[in-house]
């Protein structure tokens, strides 16, 4: 008769008592999720690895306080996002994106109306990738586009559109006004939409 694998609750208890193998078994199923969440915020492999290490240490340290009110993966994910935000805060990166051309997809005439409107197709319908190759290409395109965003804009897009945070919570967390959050979110969305459109159209600008 084979022994049944330990439950998550048993692994949490054993890991909290210092069993590093139990900690590995507890965390491994969620490692991709944790890594992905951090990488979306930091967009840099070395920083992501550092933040993940910090987060895993925090998770281990705080395990005795984990009360099981949420799923372990959700709780651990929050710890990871906080670790990423901490690393982000410690970095000094200055970007200049306060330029109006990032707010829209032109070109416009002198009255502010579209020129050559036939060049703006309904890309969002075509953007639904179906095959595995298309999905992989879309992932690479969006990852590249996200990496190209200034740090200050990527963080807002990630928290709002990928993590579903409220605008006011993002503003409080990043110490910005809600208006600034919306403005940065808009710029990020416009830039990502432009990149995605180029990708869907096969590289045509």
């Amino acid at each position, binding site marked *: 008769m084979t022994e049944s694998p330990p439950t998550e609750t048993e692994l949490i208890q054993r890991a909290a008592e*210092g069993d*590093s*193998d139990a*900690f*590995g078994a507890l*965390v*491994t199923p969620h*490692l*991709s*999720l944790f*890594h*992905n*969440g951090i990488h*979306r915020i930091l967009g840099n*492999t070395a920083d*992501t*690895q550092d933040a*993940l*290490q910090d987060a*895993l*240490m925090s998770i*281990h340290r705080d395990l005795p306080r984990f009360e099981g009110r949420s799923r372990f993966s959700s709780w651990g994910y929050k710890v990871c996002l906080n670790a990423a935000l901490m690393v982000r805060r410690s970095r000094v990166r200055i970007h200049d994106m306060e330029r*109006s051309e990032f*707010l*829209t*997809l032109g070109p*416009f005439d002198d*009255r*502010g*109306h*579209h020129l050559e*409107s036939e060049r*703006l197709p*309904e*890309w*969002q319908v075509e*953007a*639904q*990738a179906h095959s595995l190759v298309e*999905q992989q290409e*879309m*992932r690479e*395109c*969006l*990852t590249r586009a*996200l990496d190209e965003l200034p740090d200050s804009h990527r963080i807002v897009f990630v928290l709002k*559109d*990928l993590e579903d945070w409220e*605008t006011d919570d993002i503003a409080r967390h990043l110490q910005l006004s*809600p*208006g600034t959050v*919306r*403005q940065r*979110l*808009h710029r990020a*969305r*416009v830039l*990502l*939409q432009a990149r*995605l459109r180029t990708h869907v159209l096969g590289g045509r600008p």
Partner: protein
Amino acid sequence: MKLLPSCHDVQTDLTEYAEGTLPVSRRLGIRLHLWMCWVCAAFARGLEALPGIAKTALAPPPEAPGAATDALAQVQLALRKPPGT
């Protein structure tokens, strides 16, 4: 102030419009413009679709990358060491 906002004005304000933070007159102007201008309407639908597309495309891969397993291995190694060593 213009009665009907231009395409540029509309595109600049679409996130504020979606969040419901614009004054009523501005909101109504944009709504009317979107009803009449298929280019801006497509742009607005693109912005609306973006989070869903990004969430799907950027979902975590089934396997954690090597950098993540390395980080976990380092942490496990540190946990095995007696404190102060």
